[in-house]
């Protein structure tokens, strides 16, 4: 009896296994569903697509402009919306060849992927004649064509150009109210900054009676990249490119890395001096971004942070405290410095984007897919990709000009509103220089607060900026550089944190430079110089 029960159970299991095997189910994503061949007179072509979107972005079905764009192109797209872990999903998706027709997102498929997964993606050069809007973009902004073209001349991913963003992501802020409270002048050199920060610390700058709650200086905790102290190197004449997160920059046509440059050593000595005097947030290397931002919002109308870097005051300090801060010009390293001051030139990385939309080579109806792509690059549509639908997010002024409307939800700031409403910076788009669009409050603030940096940012983009966005490396070089950079950054971050908090940079500098060489830094510079010279000669 019991034996029978056991056998029955085993039988059930086997049946289950077999049922599982044959369960195709209507659940499977049918990448080859869709009308084979062309349109059957008015019926929409079905396409599948994946979008890697910002977590705040609302469901695509609620975006009016998208529905209209799909209608205009005669397509009906089944979207899969991914907000996290795209990197992990991408690997198995590509390796198994299980791909949708279109991919959308910021660098959704990288150049390295194109090189590795040959044959998976559609070369768009042959289809460009069906995309006049894209051709228009290539013609007016030749940089976009450079970004899109692989070393072998093929085009697999289309870029974006969003035009309005400033020349730098990082703005430097100081609490004007504190300066006024203490009767101090705006600092213009590193030493003057030191004196001002000391005053902030010792004299109860925010006037609340507590002498110890001011944090004179704060930043996220890195060296380069946005909002980190490497921008101080502008005070020694170094022009960073795209934040120079890994230290690379160009000077007089030569590729260099500031991590082994003596001017960087000077900056580290300065930061250590500040740290020793208690002028830097003791948690600078341990706080997470969440805490970093929270601290800057102070308490009520009492600010906590005196000097820092950020995107725009309202984001960095919150609406209530933002008016207390002034955006600054770069600081000279010393009063005697006679060179030209500089900053981080980020125009390219802020306004251009690579591989924002990619087509699969297995798409059954390539013309339809290209039609949709072309529609996205239409002036009016691109604008809505970036800021949201006409009517709710953008107003048509009737005279050929447009204005970005304030958020419909009054509790939201314009940045969040933009990201919630639409694809924003993650989508493919072309915003022509000729478009007449009045920006929203946040963007206007960014531009106004960028004014003090104008002189520093008038650089020679040919000779002083590394064109990171426009250079394509071979797979072998890319792999080698990435391994070396991992080593170099490990060394750099460790030592930077150590030297700023404990000092010792002068004694350990030579050994550090030697180690960096061993880590592969010089080889990387050589490789990059080669590509840079090549790029310059082709212009």
């Amino acid at each position: 009896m019991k034996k029978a029960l056991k056998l029955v159970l085993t039988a059930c299991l086997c049946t289950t296994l077999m049922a599982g095997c044959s369960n195709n189910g209507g659940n499977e994503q049918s990448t080859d569903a869709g009308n084979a061949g062309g349109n059957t007179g008015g019926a929409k072509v079905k396409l599948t697509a994946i979008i890697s979107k910002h977590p705040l972005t609302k469901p695509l079905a609620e975006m009016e402009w998208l529905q209209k764009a799909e209608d205009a192109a005669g397509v009906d797209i089944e979207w899969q919306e991914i907000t996290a872990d795209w990197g992990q999903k991408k690997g198995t998706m590509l390796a198994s060849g299980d791909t949708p027709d279109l991919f959308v997102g910021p660098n959704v498929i990288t150049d390295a992927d194109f090189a590795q997964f040959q044959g998976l993606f559609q070369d768009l050069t042959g289809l460009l004649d069906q995309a006049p809007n894209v051709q228009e973009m290539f013609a007016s902004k030749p940089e976009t064509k450079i970004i899109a073209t692989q070393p072998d001349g093929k085009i697999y991913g289309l870029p974006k150009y969003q035009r309005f963003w400033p020349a730098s992501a990082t703005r430097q802020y100081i609490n004007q109210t504190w300066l006024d409270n203490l009767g101090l002048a705006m600092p213009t050199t590193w030493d003057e900054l030191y004196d001002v920060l000391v005053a902030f610390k010792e004299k109860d700058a925010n006037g609340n009676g507590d002498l110890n709650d001011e944090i004179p200086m704060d930043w996220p905790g890195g060296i380069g990249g946005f909002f980190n102290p490497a921008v101080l190197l502008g005070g020694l004449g170094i022009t960073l490119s795209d934040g120079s997160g890994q230290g690379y920059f160009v000077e007089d046509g030569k590729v260099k890395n500031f991590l082994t440059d003596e001017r960087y050593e000077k900056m580290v000595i300065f930061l250590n001096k500040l740290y020793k005097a208690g002028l830097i947030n003791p948690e600078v290397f341990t706080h997470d971004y969440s805490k970093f931002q929270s601290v800057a919002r102070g308490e009520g109308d009492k600010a906590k942070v005196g000097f820092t870097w950020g995107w725009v005051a309202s984001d960095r300090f919150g609406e209530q405290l933002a008016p207390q801060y002034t955006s600054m010009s770069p600081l000279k390293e010393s009063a005697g410095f006679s060179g030209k001051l500089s900053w981080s030139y980020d125009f390219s990385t802020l306004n251009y984007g690579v591989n924002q939309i990619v087509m699969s080579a297995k798409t059954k109806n390539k013309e339809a897919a290209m039609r949709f792509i072309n529609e996205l690059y239409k002036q009016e549509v691109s604008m809505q990709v970036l800021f949201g639908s006409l009517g709710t997010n953008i107003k048509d002024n009737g005279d050929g000009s447009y204005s970005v409307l304030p958020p419909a939800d009054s509790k939201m700031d314009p940045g969040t509103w933009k990201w919630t409403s639409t694809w924003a910076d993650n989508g493919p788009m072309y915003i022509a220089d000729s478009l007449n669009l009045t920006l929203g409050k946040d963007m206007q603030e960014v531009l106004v607060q960028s004014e003090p940096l104008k002189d520093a940012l008038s650089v020679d983009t040919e000779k002083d900026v590394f064109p990171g966005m426009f250079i394509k490396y071979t797979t072998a070089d890319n792999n080698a550089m990435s391994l070396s950079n991992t080593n170099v950054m490990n060394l750099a971050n460790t030592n930077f944190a150590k030297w700023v908090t404990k000092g010792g940079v002068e004694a350990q500098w030579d050994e550090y430079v030697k180690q960096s060489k061993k880590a592969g830094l010089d080889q990387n510079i050589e490789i990059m110089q080669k590509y840079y010279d090549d790029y310059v000669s082709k212009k």
Partner: protein
Amino acid sequence: MGSRTILGTFKRDIQLWIMIFPAIAVIFVFNYIPMYGIQLAFRDFDFSKGLTGGEWRGLFYFKQFIESFLFTDLLTNTFLISFTTIIVGFPAPIILALVLNQIQRKKMKQLMQTTVYLPHFISIIVLVGMLNVLLSPETGIVGYLMKSIGFGDINLLASTSTFIPVNIISDIWQHCGWNSIIYLAALSTVDPQLYDSAKMDGASRWQTIRYIDFPALVPTIVILFILSMGNILSTGFEKIFLMQNSLNLPVSEVIATYVYKIGIVSNQFSYASAIGLFNTVINFIFLFAMNAISKKASNTSLF
């Protein structure tokens, strides 16, 4: 009776074979069939030719890893973190189980049991977030406590010497309760008559623990210890990655985080596979050795 070979006893044991068949089938299909992928550590990944078609590179990627700039640091850090976690973390659930088992009031025992296993369910992202808030020297409660006992100028999150202790203690805090469940279950099978007779013989509580409770746990302890040796170079990725910062990087950069970082910019599948295989081979050797030692010493072993 009958031959002593596997085949000989097959007929006699046919029922046993039927009972184990589903498990064998499952493991074979889902674990062994994909194993051909291991060759990716020895071959380039050539998409157009499939996983098995790339160029054969032999030990090239292993060599690349061993000769790489960070190799010694990675190996040392990984080993230190896993090893200390095992050594300190292994006894903790055992002690906890012994302690909880001694609680005589049923309600209190149940309350303690339920409480201690709760932290296990907290996701890593939240745990590290909590650590950052609570351990912050300026604003966290643990920070306050540290200041009040005089250790105010140690930043728990910021130094190379505190990284491993913080890591281990938070690990124990999170998983000790959950891991003690298996020991508690083993203790629950002890015949209560043993306790009664021990009491009548005048044994103290300590003696009860030493001579009744602990021996009941020994088989489980041995097996679990052998298995934990198989994790000698496994640190897990997510927690360490989230807890890394520039100040603890010299001790917190481990193999798992390194593989992640090289993968961000480039698709170096073969290199990553080779590193992974290197890692697991070392783990396996340790396990095997531990198993052999245990077989000799106590006759309990895994295989």
